[in-house]
């Protein structure tokens, strides 16, 4: 599946703007950290994941749920592009089944 990065960035920006910036995205830089800017909290990250899975038909694996992949428009675009191209993703932490404190 081929998608252009500009289109992905626009879709992610629209999602963030509609749900978290009350429709105003003019000041949001592509590199701005969603966490540090206070745009997404942990529930927001879950909703971003749901949006990406629904929109691009990808499965966001546990080890991929890290800020390097999801904390800005730029990082999301890079991550989605890698996923759509079937490229390997950065390694993170695998939750250990049955370990109450170890889940993602």
């Amino acid at each position, binding site marked *: 599946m081929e998608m252009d990065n500009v289109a992905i960035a626009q879709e992610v920006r629209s999602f963030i703007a509609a749900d978290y910036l009350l429709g105003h995205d003019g000041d949001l830089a592509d590199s701005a950290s969603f966490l540090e800017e206070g745009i997404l909290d942990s529930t927001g990250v*879950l909703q971003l994941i749901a949006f990406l899975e629904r929109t691009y038909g990808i499965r966001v694996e*546990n080890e991929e749920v890290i800020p390097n992949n999801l904390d800005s428009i730029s990082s999301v675009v890079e991550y989605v592009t890698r996923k759509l191209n079937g490229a390997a993703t950065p390694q993170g932490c695998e939750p250990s089944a049955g370990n*109450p404190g170890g889940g*993602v």
Partner: protein
Amino acid sequence: MSASLAVSPYVLRIDAATETERIVAGIRNVVFRQLKRRGAVIGVSGGIDSSVVAFLCARALRKERVLALFTPETESSSDSLRLGRMVAEALGVRAAVEDITPILKAAQCYERRDEAVRKVVPEYGGGDRCKIVLPGVHDPQRYALFSVVVQAPDGQTKCVRLNAEAYLGIVAATNFKQRVRKMMEYYHADRLQYAVAGTPNRLEYDLGFFVKNGDGAADVKPIAHLYKSQVYQLAAHLGVPEEIRRRPPTTDTYPLEQSQEEFYFMLPLEKMDFCLYGKNNGIPAADLGPAVGLDTDQVQRVYDAIQAKRKAAQYLRAAPVLVGEVSEV
């Protein structure tokens, strides 16, 4: 004050006798003079916080003016009711039991929660039990996202990351428990013209570890300014039974036993106490780390989490906001 002194184990030590008298005077003033109530209702869970509040209220208002209310439901630990009764008997206060299971069933609390769990664990049911957990601070990930732990009747467990819909659904359904409990507390408070005494400690109050209009609702919150370790100091001073003082804190909300740090704090409570103290007093993460056995990055993650939770808790603590002025009140 040097950093080493600032994070010594003694920084959270209080003069329990003096603090007790200060709180007792405060309860008396709030309940009798400010609120014009005749006594206090306390939802007693058998945990350290509610036990301390019950002891403080009995001392402040006299035992005849305190009602200890127990609100077990089908998924509660049996220890909760047993230890709650122990508190009431130790104080000689009146006690009442309200089994809230029928109300929760009528509201479909359990069904709604289980349905939400099945969004990520489709086979959930038939005697399975669950709880939701956070990753520990030792996990280098910055995202503190909840997972659900499901245990089958044969003891096998699995841990699955929650999606937004499942997480919000589980929390919304289980919040019935705290809200129904508070409803019963206010029933008795209305009947007796009593105030409802809330039981949050400082960690819970500051970081939003409560349900809005559930356990977050109360007329007076006598220990909301105390760190958890200070609550334990007060408990020892007040003579709270040792079994209660030794009981590991639990949320008693999910069918699988869930520690408070699994649900909210990510760290053992004594370490969380120090981290909150460090954050509140501007102690750099590098200076606090050695005192709590964490490296600088881990302390910084806790500081960041405190900031995020504190911000999210503003909504939980907010009173209803008017959009027009009512100058008469």
